[in-house]
Every structure is written in structure tokens, then in C-alpha cells.
């Protein structure tokens, strides 16, 4: 990636972002050459601001009630997710791992030194990308399985109704799909729909 990562920092609505944690983070981001595009209060403008700024990563205080506003953003942008990194007081490694599995990209523990920020964020981003890839693969696989079931049922129907062999049924479906310029699963679904309709 040649482009610098654009980061948004979210802080509790009634506090400034001048806490020690935030100060350490500012310093670390600067050293790492990341671009802090905004430091936003977690108020009702937040979803709009995130949508406008389109940051590459969001950093937020895990102990803040702002987390629920962020959850809104996560749910609202389910189809274009971005990594979220959180501060926490909890320095237990196993709980960090579990949290990461639960959907949070990284937990940054309080008292973190500025020079540690770059590697932590890099790892978070890498994990996020890997997870997204796995998630997409999983969805693809599920879709393919579902499609295969539909094709199998349509084949079964052709075999029992028209006395075709499995190979003939498959060839017939494939020819129909090619002629109509449809996917195999789509033509199979149509056959099943017609069967449903006519009983």
C-alpha cells in the first residue's frame, strides 16, 4: 500500500481527547506516519462523520459508552467493514485474543508506548484483511453448496420424471443454461419452481 492509512480517533462526547492514552496514540501515529484525519466526539453526528470521512481504521476507547454508537456504524456498514481498534485497561493476552475473534480487530492496552503503536496497528490491519478474506471464502463456499443442492434436486427431478440418467439430466441443464444465458443454479431453480407450481 503506497497510500497512508487514514485513521479516525473516537473519544467520549463530554471529554476532550487530551487523555494520556490519546496523547500517546497521537505521538505514535505521527511517528508511524499515519494520517489522523479526525478526532471525533462519540455523539449523534458520529455515523454521518464516519460515512463522510471513510477512514481506513477507527480507534475508540473500549470503556466508553460510545461503543454502542460505533456498533451502529458496524451494523450499518456490514457490507463494507473496516477495522476497529480499541483501548482497554484489560492487559490479559487471552482476553485480547478472544476479543479479536469476537470481531474487534485489536485491543490496545493502556500505558502503551508510542513506539509500539505502529506494529500493533499493522497487525490489526493484517488480521482484519485476513478475516475479511476468510469470511468471503466462507460465504462463497456456502453459496456454492446451496447452488449444488439446487442443481442436484433439479437433476433428480429430471431423472425421475423423464427417465434420464444422471449424466443426461446434467447435460440437459447445462444446455438450457447456455441457451438462456443463465447460471446452472438459476435454471435448476426455475425447474424446481415450475414443479412447485404445477405440483
Amino acid at each position, binding site marked *: 500500500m503506497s497510500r497512508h492509512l487514514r485513521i479516525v480517533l473516537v473519544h467520549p*462526547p463530554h471529554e476532550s481527547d487530551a487523555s494520556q492514552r490519546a496523547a500517546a496514540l497521537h505521538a505514535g501515529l505521527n511517528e508511524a506516519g499515519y494520517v489522523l484525519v479526525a478526532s471525533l466526539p462519540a*455523539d*449523534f453526528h458520529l*455515523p454521518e462523520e464516519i460515512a463522510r470521512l471513510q477512514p481506513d481504521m477507527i480507534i475508540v476507547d*473500549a*470503556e*466508553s*459508552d*460510545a*461503543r*454502542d*454508537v*460505533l*456498533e*451502529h456504524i*458496524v*451494523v*450499518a456498514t*456490514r457490507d463494507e467493514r473496516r477495522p476497529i481498534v480499541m483501548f482497554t485497561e*484489560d492487559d*490479559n493476552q*487471552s*482476553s*485480547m485474543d*478472544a*476479543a479479536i*475473534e*469476537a*470481531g*474487534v480487530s485489536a485491543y490496545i492496552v493502556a500505558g502503551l508506548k508510542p513506539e509500539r503503536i505502529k506494529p500493533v496497528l499493522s497487525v490489526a490491519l493484517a488480521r482484519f484483511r485476513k478475516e475479511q478474506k476468510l469470511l468471503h471464502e466462507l460465504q462463497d463456499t456456502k453459496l456454492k453448496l*446451496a447452488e449444488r443442492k439446487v442443481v442436484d434436486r433439479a437433476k433428480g427431478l429430471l431423472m425421475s420424471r423423464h427417465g434420464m440418467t444422471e449424466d443426461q439430466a446434467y447435460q440437459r441443464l447445462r444446455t438450457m443454461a447456455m441457451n438462456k444465458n443463465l447460471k446452472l443454479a438459476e435454471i435448476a431453480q426455475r425447474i424446481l419452481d415450475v414443479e412447485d407450481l404445477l405440483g
Partner: protein
Amino acid sequence: MHAQCNPAGAVMQIEKTTVNIGFNPLTDCASVVMAAMLGFDEKHGIRIVLSRETSWASVRDKLMTGELDAAHVLYGLVYGTQLGIGAQPRDMAVLMNLNRNGQAITLSRRLAEQGANDGASLAALMAREPRQYVFAQTFPTGTHAMWLHYWLAAHGIHPLRDVRAITVPPSQMVYNLVEGHMDGFCAGEPWHHQALLEGIGVTAATSQQIWPDHPEKVLGTSLDFVRAHPNTCRALVAAVLEASRWIDASDENRRATAEIIAAVPYVNTDKAAILPRILGRYENGMKGAWQDEHPMRFHQDGQANYPWLSDGMWFMTQFRRWGLLKADPDYLQVAQSVTQLRLYREAAEMAGVAVPTDVLRTSTLVDGRTWDGTDPARYAASFPIHQRSGSAGN
């Protein structure tokens, strides 16, 4: 290690005696607080350690990490997590229902002065004075989002197209209403009565008007925790059941409860904000006052605590209705796996609480529709106002 007798009289070992319970500062955290306060935890061989949380999402994260063993949590959050809405899916568990009713919808004083003081008059005002109306709830999959959506839709207002729906933490609702950032909100108490006391909002609807005796918070945990600590869970449910029964036993007990939970470590508010509505005494800020037929209930002879499968399924039907789920889940199977019915029955027996025999119940909601849990996919598809994206199976 403590030992406890189970209903069959056999000694059972409690796997984890110190139980960390998270709660959010709301009136309906009362039963978990009182279970610890009144010593029902010790009676059942455990020690409840309470942890005040400030956000629902961090309650969920801490249940995942094991930092919390169980929590006072939104019904919908448990199912949202189970189904992977907003986070990676994780197997969750509902141990028991903590309360029914006792939430509300507040409209700003400004709206009330323009004539909007209930659903019908709000719809009329929105038609008469078109602009962007903003309504807040507390968590995208939570109960308050579902009550708000349901109530708006019942009055012909599409909650995702006709208004802007936002998430605001409960404790910031009153402030945002004062600042004019929004026109109304749905959250738990004491925030609605607080808005009334400050003269900045009116109670346009109670959540029990939307669904009389609706389920609200649950005692939730992860399925992993239940599997590893079944006896701890039984003891915990028994302790909270006893506290629930105690709170509901008299107005005197409710007053004592309000006194205790108003304190700084719990809800951290003035007792006056909690007391009237925990006693069922409502006013709406428009000179209307009444003794509510369906106030916040913590026990109701166990009816309020029983985790009905139809209650759990209802939240999934609304997720489907509003596009949070893109296809129908296997409603009954998911509800059965989340709801720890057998464990609940055993714990109820330990606490001497009656258990209904059915697992589904029938309710009629504000739009006149009946929900009985028998055909969830059909119910989910039956609403004229919805945001179902794509067809089932996509």
C-alpha cells in the same frame, strides 16, 4: 469448593463460586443487584461480583473474553450475537428473563407543543410539517430499537426511511433531547421519567402499550460458560429468581430496591427518578397520570422470568423484518439452542418457583397482530412496513 444440593437431593459441586456479573445502570438491573445485596447468592453457594458497564457492546465483548461470566443484557443483543450481526457469530445463552415492561418512548416537549403526543398525532405532525425527524435507540439489535421501530411502523411511519434512527447511549438521551439533537427516544428507565422531571419531554407511549408484558432484559452468557459451569449457572439463576420474587413481593420492597439501586455504584441517579415507575405510577408530562396495569415486573410468580421460546424468536422475526437478517434463520432451532430451558427449570425448582409447561405464549401487539411463535417466518414476512432486502435464501 462449595457444595449445594440439587433438586434431586444429590450434592453438586459449584464449578466457579465467584461469579462476575455485568450490568448497565438502568432500573431493570435491580434483580441482579438485589441478589447480591440480600445474600441470595451466598444462600446458593456463590458470590456475585457486580461490574457496572457503560455500553452494551462492551458487555458483549466481555462475555466473549470471559471477563464477565454473565450479564444483565438486552434480549436482542444475545440473539444478534448468536446470529453474527455486528460481530463474529458466537454461541450465546439466555439463562432467564430478568423483567417485563418498563421502557418507553419519549417525544420532545417541542413536538408535544406542536400537537404530537402519541403515535397517531406524531404521524399527523410529520405529514403536516415535513423535515428530517431524528429518533434514538440504545443499540442496533437491542430491545429499544425493536420497540421504537415497531411503534413507528404501527403508526404508518417507516423507521428506516421516514425518520433518521440513531444510536445514543441511555445516559446521554436526556442531554441530546435538551440540545435539540433529536425528536424522541426509546430507552429504559429511569431516563423517561428523568426527561419528564426536567420538563423536556413527554411520555408518548410505554413499551407495555406496544406489547403488554413484553420480555425485556435477560441474564445472558456464552454457551461455553454454561457448558463448563452448569452448577454455577443453576445457583445463579436460583439466586436471581429469589431476588426477583422479593422485589415483586410488596411496594415496600420496591421502595427499598429503588433506594439501593439509585446509589452511585449502580444507577447513580436521584431516587425520585426511579421510584414512581418502579411502583407502576405513571404520568406522561401532559397532565395524564395512571396506575399502570403492566408495569415493570421482575417476577410475576415466575411468569416474567421464564425464558419463553416465543420471546426469543420474536426478536429474530424483527431482525428479519428490518433487514438485519437477509434470510430466515431456523427460528425454533436457534431459540432452543440459546434458551437454557432445562437448566432454568432445575434452578426454578431449587428456588421453589413455578414453571409454566408451555414453551410458547400468545400476545397481541399494538398493531393488533398476534404473535404466538408457531410460524415465525410467516409472521416476519407479514408486515406491510419492512426493510426485507432480497428474497429468502439470498
